[in-house]
């Protein structure tokens, strides 16, 4: 498609630089040619001019015998420029949009169901075979009951975003099929052998640093694409990342995904599974942006490093406690304005005397003993309390962490694992479910955020602050 770049095709700066360079070269060539032509024109002024009436653009350029390029015009310069313009015009290739149509849904009987995979909060997934092609796919039945407003908007958004988010690190929605009843709706997606959650549960040893890098890079690539399309995922977690035995990982389950804008619209705070939910959501921010996905990625990164979910809160209050235990409490320097968030009013935080050397401050080294400094820097940025301090997905991709040794492991070199999804029913996960749509946003009382269950939570003591009760 490089020949058909148009004005609005978004190019990376490198391509733009190349294009600019080509343009400059072309311009120079044209000028040189015009000059040469003018000289030729002058030297042959005496010769008969009416021989050739040449207006056709000349693809072979300078090598053409000058005789052919004679013209009737008295103004060789202008004529030459005109001709060149025509030539340039002929070279333009118009951008053609990908040809796309629509087709009526096929019937689900075109698929033979093989085995059940799992039940998520938004539907049942099974492994199935396309009867006509023999391909193995994942068939996800959408839960549609109890919808007084017709087809649930979450299901519509899931389909819409998946249809538009075509990327190598986003699960591929092949088509939507229907059963006999109008509310039997199935998504047909590429089948993947694993999800990251189950894989981490089953593995004896965590992934190697080089493997983590490859996986994280792919997830970041997928997320960068989603955000570039103004899609927020809003439920990133390890069980929503699908993996195959070729080292490829894809973002799945768009049940919570939606389009957003800039400035961010007012949206529900009841998104993202608790353990992966960002502090601004927990503190009740009504306006939030793609930074919430970046926070989730930070949690996923931590989980890949330790094989354990990073922040396993029992409820919202406990989740906030655990977050602050890891990152240190917020203050108005590292997170200006957090006090005005609805749920922050009940939050009692001691004024921390220790001023952090960096903003956002580095996470405690002891938590990730085997991580390089660059890696620790990255995860500390991802898990910055202040959403504005978190890097964008694009910025993350160019982080030094991905360039230092050990380098990301080539996908082909990835180990393979026995697939749970392939043959047998999976055991139930213990990750809490994503919040249900339509629930009331809870008014949370964080007064006890630092006071509950002393002794049980070693994080409180380790976080380096004391409690001011009452």
């Amino acid at each position, binding site marked *: *498609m490089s020949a058909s770049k*148009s*004005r*609005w*095709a*978004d190019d990376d700066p490198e391509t733009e630089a190349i294009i600019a360079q080509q343009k400059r070269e072309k311009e120079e060539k044209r000028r040189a040619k015009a000059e040469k032509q003018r000289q030729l024109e002058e030297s042959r002024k005496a010769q008969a001019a009416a021989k050739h009436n040449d207006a056709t653009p000349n693809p072979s350029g300078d090598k053409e015998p000058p005789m052919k390029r004679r013209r009737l015009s008295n103004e060789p310069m202008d004529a030459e420029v005109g001709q060149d313009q025509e030539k340039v*015009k002929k070279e*333009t290739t*118009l*951008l*053609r*949009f*990908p*040809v*796309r*149509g*629509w*087709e*009526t*849904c096929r019937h689900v009987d075109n698929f033979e169901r093989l085995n059940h995979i799992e039940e998520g909060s938004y539907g049942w997934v099974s492994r199935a075979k396309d009867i006509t092609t023999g391909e193995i796919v994942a068939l996800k039945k959408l839960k549609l009951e109890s919808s007084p*407003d*017709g*087809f649930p*908007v979450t299901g*519509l*958004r899931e*389909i*819409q975003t998946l*249809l*538009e*988010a*075509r*990327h190598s690190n986003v699960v591929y929605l092949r*088509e*939507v099929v*229907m059963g006999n009843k*109008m*509310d039997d*709706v199935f998504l047909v997606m590429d089948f993947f052998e694993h999800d990251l959650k189950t894989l981490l549960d089953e593995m004896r040893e965590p992934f190697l640093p080089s493997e983590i890098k490859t996986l994280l890079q792919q997830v970041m690539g997928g997320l960068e*694409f989603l955000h*570039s*399309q*103004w899609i927020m995922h809003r439920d990133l977690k390890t069980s929503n990342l699908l993996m195959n035995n070729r080292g490829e990982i894809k973002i799945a389950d768009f049940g919570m995904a939606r389009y957003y*804008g800039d400035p961010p*619209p007012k949206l529900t705070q009841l998104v993202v599974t608790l353990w992966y939910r960002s502090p601004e959501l927990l503190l009740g921010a009504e306006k939030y942006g793609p930074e919430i996905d970046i926070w989730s990625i930070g949690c996923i990164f931590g989980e890949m490093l330790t094989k354990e979910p990073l922040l396993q809160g029992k409820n919202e209050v406990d989740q906030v406690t655990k977050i602050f235990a890891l990152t240190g409490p917020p203050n108005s320097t590292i997170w200006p304005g957090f006090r005005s968030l609805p749920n922050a009013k009940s939050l009692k935080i001691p004024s921390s005397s220790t001023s952090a050397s960096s903003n956002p401050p580095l996470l405690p080294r002891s938590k990730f003993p085997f991580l390089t400094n660059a890696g620790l820097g990255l995860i500390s940025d991802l898990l910055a309390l202040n959403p504005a301090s978190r890097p964008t997905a694009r910025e993350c991709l160019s982080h030094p962490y991905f360039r230092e040794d050990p380098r990301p492991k080539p996908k082909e070199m990835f180990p393979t694992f026995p697939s749970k999804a392939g043959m047998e029913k999976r055991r139930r996960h213990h990750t809490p479910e994503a919040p249900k749509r339509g629930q009331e946003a809870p008014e949370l009382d964080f007064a006890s955020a630092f006071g509950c269950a002393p002794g049980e939570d070693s994080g409180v003591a380790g976080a380096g602050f004391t409690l001011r009760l009452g």
Partner: protein
Amino acid sequence: MESGLKHLSNALATPNQLSNSSSSIDGVPPELETSIRCAGAQLTQAAGVLLGLSQDIIAQAIVLFTRFWLGADGGSLRIYAAKDVSASALYLAAKLSFQPTSPRSVINVYTFLLSPDASPLWFVNPRGAPDEPPAPETYILTEGGYQSARSTLLRIESVILRALGFDTHVALPHAIALTYLQTLGATKPSVSRRVIQHLNTALLSPQLLYVTHQPNALAVAAIYLAAREQGVKLVDTEWWEVFDVDREELGFLVVGMQSTEGFMRAEKGRWENKTIPLVVDTVEAEIEKGRMLGEGE
């Protein structure tokens, strides 16, 4: 890069879908189908305005409505009522937007617009909106009537989704056109206004411009037309190529957009003092009437 263009482009109808609509297979005469489709688009527009929806939602609903009837797998006017498809398309488009609306609001508005006594729409109430408000029962539903209308609204929503394979994405030319105008340095408000008018009129085009051309082409054609009408000179070069539209496509679209007004006049003449059938029964009656006339000749 291709996927990056997705939000700027649309799924288009195939030639096969355009020449073989489900209605034509079922024996609905093509002129009648065109009239009903156009009336349905106007109904959707009017309802959207009464519901206070923004024009992008209304335009998306009209495009979904238009797509629904195309192709052998699409909806047939002998099976689905145009008024129901209009209402469900609007409800669906609003649901997907930042401005969702309730089934009750949609049904109230459609009941009013389809009332033969109260409606201001010429193809529903040829006498025009009455000066005195008519009796409320002529445009207000009973609770029972509401319940059944609601279940129809939600059922047809699913029918539309199935027919379209759940592809509800509609990219519109309006915002694109404004960007192009800025790029061209044509900032005169009268031109911009005229561009938007042309783009909204094109939603009613019998040539179904929104399902046969990409939004960038529609935007360019509207700008070309508006600039000419307003006597604003744009750059000398073939600027439309910068926006990836060739002369041929531009020419076709300009003619198509210009002809919509004449088409609408002809429609008004053809259906003078008559109503355009928007439900299955009246469509059947209209087909039967046409057949009788044909045999009588």
